[in-house]
């Protein structure tokens, strides 16, 4: 488990082997290794190896997702036993085969966004190889990096003094930090983390693991990765591919609203009225009939018992939404109750369109909330 155990949509969590490829590219030392998706790809053994399931959840070791091999037979057995199995409900399709390291000590290091400082923060500890949350605060070095100055060696020296590194290790550590910051900036990362950062018996620092989380908003300037968020449901992945902010919940009222804040407020209000939302769906700041129609398509797939539409028109105009609702009702032959609230830009026109098509619309949010909780 890592410092950042909750990352959702808009963020891309890379597999270990991908992270290590990136590290290699930036000159950060990683163990020799290669990745296979079938036992046929396994090469002849030259050194004892670790065989590591490539999944996106922490706690892999404890869950049996990592094995070791000293002979060719052991290696093949390990690969066979891991591929296709489920580790914490995720199917393993790739394993990373790496030379085993002779471990003298394990450190922790990461660079991540610090929201309140609006800056990256360097986090380091001499107590690595364990969940960083379990390390006492006084053993963790934390320091904000000024984005205008960038990373500079003095920051690494502070960390290295804090961690009590020897002059030789400190030199390697400073070199590694510079490169890690280059990864963080160069790859538009949310998080770059090495845990454990291994000091080998012959005194070398090597990244034994690699966690790289990328800001998906920055994908336009980077290579594409084919990764599905393991914490998302199939319907959420489908919604994501269509560009909607969509979260499945366990209730029975489908919700379509505009703006993340208003959508959250709608769910909050529903729950306070004992209504149980089936989903979160934010139409976003667009003004397009098809976006409304496709939103209905997604929500209907979740099989709600009623649908609540809550719109405050600004960029998104009420008449556009009304037209979308009417089109969707026809297209998908919707029989379940639709409760609509329209307020703001073009609300009169919107309500008129709905009225002409036999759909009642409220101008206030609370009456709509009350109605939808009593409609079935």
């Amino acid at each position: 488990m890592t410092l950042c155990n909750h990352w959702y949509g808009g963020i891309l969590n890379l597999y270990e082997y991908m992270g290590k490829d990136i590290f290699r590219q930036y000159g950060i030392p990683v163990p020799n290794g290669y990745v296979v998706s079938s036992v046929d790809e396994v090469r002849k053994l030259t050194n004892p190896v670790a065989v590591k399931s490539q999944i996106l959840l922490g706690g892999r070791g404890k869950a049996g997702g990592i094995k070791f091999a000293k002979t060719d037979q052991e290696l093949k057995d390990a690969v066979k036993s891991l591929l296709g199995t489920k580790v914490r409900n995720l199917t393993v399709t790739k394993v990373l085969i790496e030379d085993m390291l002779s471990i003298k000590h394990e450190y922790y290091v990461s660079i991540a966004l610090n929201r309140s400082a609006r800056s990256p923060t360097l986090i380091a500890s001499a107590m690595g190889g364990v969940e960083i949350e379990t390390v006492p605060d006084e053993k963790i070095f934390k320091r904000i990096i000024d984005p205008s100055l960038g990373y500079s060696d003095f920051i690494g020296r502070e960390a290295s003094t804090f961690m009590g590194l020897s002059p030789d290790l400190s030199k390697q550590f400073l070199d590694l930090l510079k490169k890690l910051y280059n990864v963080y900036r160069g790859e538009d990362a949310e998080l770059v983390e090495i845990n454990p950062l291994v000091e080998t018996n012959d005194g070398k620092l090597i990244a034994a693991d690699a966690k790289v989380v990328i800001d998906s908003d920055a994908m336009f300037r980077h290579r594409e990765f084919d990764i599905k968020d393991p914490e998302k449901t199939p319907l959420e992945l489908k919604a994501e591919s269509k560009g909607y902010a969509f979260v499945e919940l366990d209730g029975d009222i489908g919700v379509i609203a505009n703006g993340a804040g208003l959508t959250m407020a709608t769910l909050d209000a529903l729950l306070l009225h004992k209504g149980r939302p089936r989903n979160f769906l934010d139409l976003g700041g667009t003004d397009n009939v098809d976006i409304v129609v496709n939103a209905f398509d997604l929500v209907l797939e979740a099989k709600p018992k009623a649908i609540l539409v809550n719109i405050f028109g600004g960029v998104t105009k009420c008449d556009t939404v009304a037209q979308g609702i009417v089109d969707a009702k026809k297209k998908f032959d919707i029989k379940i109750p639709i409760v609509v609230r329209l307020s703001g830009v073009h609300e009169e026109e919107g309500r008129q369109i709905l009225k002409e098509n036999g759909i009642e619309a409220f101008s206030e949010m609370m009456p709509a909330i009350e109605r939808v909780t009593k409609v079935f």
Partner: protein
Amino acid sequence: MVLIDKNTKVIVQGITGHQGSFHTGEMLKFGTKVVAGVAPGKGGTKFADKVPIVNSVSEAMQYEPNATMISVPAPFVKDAAYEAIDNGLKIVYILTEHVPYQDAMEIVREASLRGITVLGPNGPGITVPFESKIGIMPNHIFKEGDVAIASRSGTLTYEIVYAVTKAGMGESTVIGLGGDRVVGLTFIDVLKMFEKDEKTKRIVLVGEIGGNNEELAADYIKKHVKKKVVAYIAGRSAPPGKRMGHAGAIIERGVGTAESKLKAFAEAGVKVADYPQDIPKLLEE
């Protein structure tokens, strides 16, 4: 007056785009002094037969602007914001959503080093009824008054502004901070401005789950704010770890939960409304 007034001269970077042109029209209707639009390669033409369009912010400086609205696609936002910063504009409002957060981080830092205010990215801007408006808030929801509103949301802001207006009160200033993880202003920044503003008597903070902006604000209110403050927090029902729509609403690392925000506001004596529509009631108590 907070940040802008009727003398504020605004340019629009990306004035010929879909959003840029629509909202420039709305701003003009509101009474905002839009003095020029920037659209590279389209210099020499006019917007709505009256606002001159130029090729660069540098060219636009002849109209002596002090603020800009940036409405260009996300990959070009950093360049546009740097152009505004380099030309010394004092208010940089970024409408665009999906700006890479590291771009926002750099923009916000470089601006703050130069005493420049950044609104957004991904926020509705600022409105001072009926002095000026920079941004995309609907014109018809405002009424002049003494309630200052600062919000991390877009439409939810309109909802609350409208509720305040319909309750017979009015607004002194409404500021949207922006919904992204990295935005230009914090609640503390705006609380300082609201506390100083003579027109403002009462303050509404519209928060969200995620981050510790609300917690820090609560602490600041306890120590420094004499005016009445009430709040609303969106996402109180969100299951931990489910991201609601935009990156600003992540519950990360166990902080930033609705509980921690409610607790902080309670300790600061800030009443929190259950529904957005309850805000006027709390303001009148």
